[in-house]
């Protein structure tokens, strides 16, 4: 990674100049009045904001507060390292095993994006007060989350695998997803048909066969002539559209909402505390120190 030594050298140089300036030379002082540095930084943040909107916001949201696909970048929790160097490596190389791709930015552009991210006010994420151990018990027990969601190799198949949901979603998002699953629908497997490689939505799909049987589930894949359905019984069903009566999509989650009458505020806190601990197997970004 050529850029890190470069940053390091620049910092050393500035340090040296400022030391020299303060002790003996007046030339160095006039070269860099603080106003210029601040203006330059403001321009860098503006450039970073523009780059972020164009390249990062589709997954991380317009204000970097997290989208359906990428984590909140204002939470102060940096799964792949919080130093400038680590974030630089994450942006440049991506994170293998996740949806974060490598990016072909110039070094100055990456630095501008980092400057922009650093300039953002931290999100008002609620403090995590719950008991994660109890959350684990509830998740796999009475709250029945594990019936549909898998964590680290055990659990159900119908909903998204949550093994690293703590690294990918904000607390607010997790709370919303439990109380009101339809609020911001998740995305499913990557849609092979899509120009941008966007994932298929977790649409609820109902197939009605010619004999009138209704099969409810989530489409694992679909094209113009066929649909591959994971039904609520967690079995795979394959249909040719020409051989069924109808295939109906519904923009609604199959997950039932968990209102307070169903899941107390304290139990919810515990489950969220458990989810936040789920960070999958830590994958180092290449070049991260």
């Amino acid at each position, binding site marked *: 990674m050529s850029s890190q030594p470069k940053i390091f050298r620049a910092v050393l140089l500035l340090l040296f100049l400022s030391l020299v300036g303060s002790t003996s030379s007046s030339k160095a002082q006039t070269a860099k009045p603080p106003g210029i540095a601040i203006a330059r930084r403001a321009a860098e943040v503006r450039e970073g904001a523009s780059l972020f909107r164009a*390249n990062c916001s*589709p997954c991380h949201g317009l204000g970097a507060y997290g989208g359906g696909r990428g984590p909140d970048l204002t939470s102060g929790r940096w799964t792949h390292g919080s130093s400038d160097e680590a974030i630089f490596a994450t942006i440049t190389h991506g994170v293998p095993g996740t949806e974060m791709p490598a990016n072909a930015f110039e070094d100055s552009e990456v630095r501008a994006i980092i400057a922009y991210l650093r300039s953002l006010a931290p999100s008002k994420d609620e403090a995590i007060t719950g008991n994660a151990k109890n959350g684990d018990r509830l998740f796999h027990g009475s709250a029945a989350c594990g019936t549909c969601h898998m964590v680290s190799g055990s659990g159900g198949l119908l909903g998204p695998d949550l093994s690293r949901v703590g690294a990918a979603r904000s607390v607010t998002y997790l709370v919303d997803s439990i109380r009101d699953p339809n609020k911001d629908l998740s995305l499913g497997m990557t849609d092979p048909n*899509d*120009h941008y490689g966007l994932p298929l939505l977790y649409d609820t799909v109902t197939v009605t066969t010619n004999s009138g049987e209704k099969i409810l589930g989530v489409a694992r894949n679909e094209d113009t002539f066929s649909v591959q359905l994971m039904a609520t019984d967690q079995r795979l069903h394959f249909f040719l559209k020409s051989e069924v009566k109808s295939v109906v999509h519904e923009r609604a989650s199959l997950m039932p909402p968990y209102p307070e009458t169903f899941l107390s505020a304290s139990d919810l806190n515990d489950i969220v505390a458990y989810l936040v601990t789920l960070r999958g197997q830590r994958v180092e970004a290449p070049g991260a120190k």
Partner: protein
Amino acid sequence: MKKSILIALMAVAALLASATTLHAQVTYERLRNAPGEPQNWLTYSGRYSGWRYSTLDQINVNNAAHLAMRWAFQVGDLGQFETTPLVVDGVIYGSGQNNRAFAIDARTGRALWRYQRNLPDKLQICCGMDNRGLAILGDRLFMATLDGHVVALEAKTGNLLWDVTAADYRKAYSFTLAPLVVKNEVIVGVSGGEYGVRGFIDAYDAATGKRLWRFDTVPGPGAPGHESWSGDSWKTGGAPAWITGTFDPELNLIYWPTGNPAPSNYGGDRAGDNLYSNSMLALDADTGQLKWYFQFTPHDLYDYDATQIPVLVDANWEGQPRKLLVQANRNGFYYVLDRTNGKFLFATPYGNVTWAKGIDAAGKPIVNDALVAKPEGTRVCPGATGLTNWYSPSFDPDTSLLYVATSNECDIFTNSPQQYRAGHDFIGSVYVPDPEERPSGSLKALDVHTGEVKWSFPFFSNPWGGVLSTAGGVVFVGAADGNFIALDARTGSDLWHVQLGAAIYSTAVTFEVAGKQYVLIPSGSALFAFALQ
């Protein structure tokens, strides 16, 4: 070796060369009369009028269900395989990703030669390392390259004959289109509208590679239209010309459409109509001089490139025979122009359009000001990829229908200014598909006179492939979900389809060799050939 033997051998070689060369010559006359040799596919759109229609009818509505794969040819690069292959006397010439080119035996799929351009490492290409095809004249093939060059290859060997620089790739100028050959000219239009290039259309001498003329699609100081740009915005104004034009030999006019003004999604720093972005240009074929223009989307904020094939149709219009140019535009409206003078005749939406309330009597859009992009985002239809895009439409004279693959997607457009930096993205903002609506698509059959949708065939995903129509009454279209589909041209009913395993980013062509009609379609990294069992 004795001198006399040497001379004799050279004479024999010369005779052989001239004999075979004569056989392979694709003259301008042949290109002009391409509809008269339907066994071949000699130009990007199959004929100068842009119809993408073939009079072959061995494959027809009654037997299309019996199509079967005859061979596949692997190019070697996975991605958006956008080529339109040419077919000349039993040989297929095509291009692939990263400026590959190839020649193959049309009956067996066996390669005769392969060529790959040595490209620089750092190229700024908006949407994939794509190339849409070659052009042919005489025994030469022409390719416009991703690093801003135009090259000529020898058709029998793939040897490089000449290589000229048209533009600077370090400033993100590139070529992705198939050239158009007219007379002795190789005509190309530049890509790079996402990087603030200044667009142009060039003509090169097919024999030498010498540039014969250039038309700047953003007029410079003193030229008419320059006043449609505020300040210095014209210098980075975009208006690329990245799809192959069409040609009317009788009028001696080339019709070439242009793309978005730059930055595409922010107009605050380029006040004015921004000529000749999103326009149809009619250029004199010999000089490149502008005869007329028609701008579809002035001061565009939604990336509505007009880079759809201009289709030239002679038809009765209000009782009079008239030379028409029709275009189903990316902005969602179907347009009919008089191609002799550019006069606007008619426009109508052919899908969901919200950015404009309609088109006025002069052909100008009545813009819906309430929807102009805001910093926090505004939902606009069609989305940035348009109701249709660069993929080819097809005009079928038997049905008088224009077949257009369409995308059903609305986008949330945000709005923010951006500083130009040479060789960098210059888009102005970002758009995302409306998260509440899964994008889908359809093939629409438009009445060429009225724009009325006569039938529509739904695709699960929005398409990236175009349409071929044939005298057999069969329309072929490739879907982004990997299905290659044959439809009844009159009703839109599905006659046959096959899943090819990768999105289709191109348009089928058809040809005949040894008495058999084939249909060719690229998908993934392979070219597939289908014929009747």
